[in-house]
């Protein structure tokens, strides 16, 4: 097995465990590459990649762009705020216009769930989903698992709790799929209003008490409260949310064991996680960011190897 089973990365749910294994092994090599004095390899000299961001992003966009450049691909960037989308152009038209300039691969973030699946069925290019609404964010889940593997040796058999706004989170869904594929147990924890109604159908444990959840887990992945996706109020106040679901040093120190803290960023310091926790040795938040580049290089490299000219 040295080839992905898919031609696009639309979501973790389309991958199998060998795919994840292959991505991780390839990322190991790229992690070595990006720690060299010269961090660039010429593999993708003949590939052009378009980064289409129909929704704001800083770290994901930078991480993808850096990964592409480290592989020597040609890169074009596009943000919806400065484009003809505002003038009424459809998604397929926008993308086909870009593809007619001989682009081989599209990395897309879009506010609508399923946008990348839709695109993959209608255009002739490799598609990487960089987040579609509250659906999936596969590269984030891959880099999260990769970071757990790096810190704890493996993902298999570990207990991972995802804390916070599960309802609006694409990171949560992709993480649940990825962790389960690799044999981890997953729990979600948050206020009832932010837990999707039938989430237990995915085979995850559900807990509303943060202390109980933290005592159970090896790793806690803290999510941000996505105020921008909330049209109504899901909890009385930010202060109350922090009291119930915020992680602070005192809480961590009172647990029976030392757990690993993750956060996909951007962090709201003092809301879901306090500064002393975010900057502590238990947190692997910046490792996650570094691994993000290696993981994205691996995904792009493996998908590009399936493009035939």
């Amino acid at each position, binding site marked *: 097995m*040295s*080839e992905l089973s898919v031609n696009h990365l639309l979501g973790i749910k389309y991958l199998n465990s060998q795919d994840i294994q292959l991505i991780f092994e*390839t990322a190991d*090599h790229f992690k*070595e*590459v990006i720690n*060299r*004095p*010269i*961090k*660039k*390899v*010429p*593999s*993708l000299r*003949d590939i052009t990649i378009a980064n289409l961001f129909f929704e704001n992003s800083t770290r994901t966009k930078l991480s993808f762009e850096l990964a592409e450049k480290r*592989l020597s691909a040609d890169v074009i960037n596009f943000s919806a705020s400065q484009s003809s989308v505002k003038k009424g152009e459809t998604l397929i038209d926008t993308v086909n216009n870009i593809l007619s300039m001989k682009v081989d691969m599209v990395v897309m973030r879009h506010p609508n769930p399923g946008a990348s699946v839709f695109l993959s069925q209608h255009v002739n290019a490799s598609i990487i989903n960089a987040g579609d609404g509250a659906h999936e964010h596969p590269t984030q889940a891959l880099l999260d698992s990769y970071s757990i593997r790096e810190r704890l040796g493996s993902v298999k058999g570990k207990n991972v709790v995802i804390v916070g706004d599960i309802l609006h989170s694409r990171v949560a869904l992709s993480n649940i799929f990825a962790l389960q594929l690799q044999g981890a147990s997953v729990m979600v924890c948050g206020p009832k209003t932010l837990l999707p109604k039938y989430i237990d159908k995915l085979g995850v444990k559900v807990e509303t008490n943060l202390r109980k959840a933290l005592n159970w887990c090896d790793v806690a992945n803290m999510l941000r409260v996505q105020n921008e996706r909330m049209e109504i109020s899901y909890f009385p106040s930010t202060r109350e949310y922090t009291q119930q679901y915020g992680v602070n040093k005192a809480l961590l120190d009172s647990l029976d064991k030392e757990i690993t803290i993750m956060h996909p960023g951007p962090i709201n310091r003092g809301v879901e996680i306090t500064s002393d926790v975010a900057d502590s040795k238990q947190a692997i938040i910046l490792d996650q960011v570094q691994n993000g580049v290696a993981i994205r290089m691996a995904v792009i*490299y*493996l998908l*590009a*190897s*399936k*493009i*035939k*000219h």
Partner: protein
Amino acid sequence: MSQKVLLNAKEVNIILHRLACQLIENHNDFTDTVLIGLQPRGKYLANRLAKMLKEEYKIKNIQLGYLDITFFRDDFRRGEKPLEANTTEINFLVEDKNIVFIDDVLYTGRSIRAALTAIQSFGRPNEIELLTLIDRRFSRHLPIQPDYRGRQVDAINEEKVKVNWQENDGEDSVYLINN
């Protein structure tokens, strides 16, 4: 499929000793020299030579690394199978060093071309030499020749040269395989 023995264990051993002596002749105590085995197959030859230099010729400062060239190859997406990477382990600086690339078979020269590019990521070496156990002459695509060669072989393109190592394949030997 037929195969012919090009070198047996005894001949491989004699050649390794000669190559080790030739390296000593040019590099003295190896203060400014580093050995780089090219992944995947050059690693075994590099290990063997490094061990021999250390144990039998009592050279203390042998620096040995392995270089993977997968991401620098010029046939990405041209073959049927995707390229699989190996580990690069270079835990020293190559800046201003004399490098000896070590590989088992020199054929088209394309791997060496890739290695010459790949090593630049680790600094600017003073000089690079090439050592190969088998030199398949007349089949080069690029103007690349070895500085140290074990045995020169005339093989046609349909033939394959297979180098076996005790630690990996159970015996030291070189075969010419005709499909």
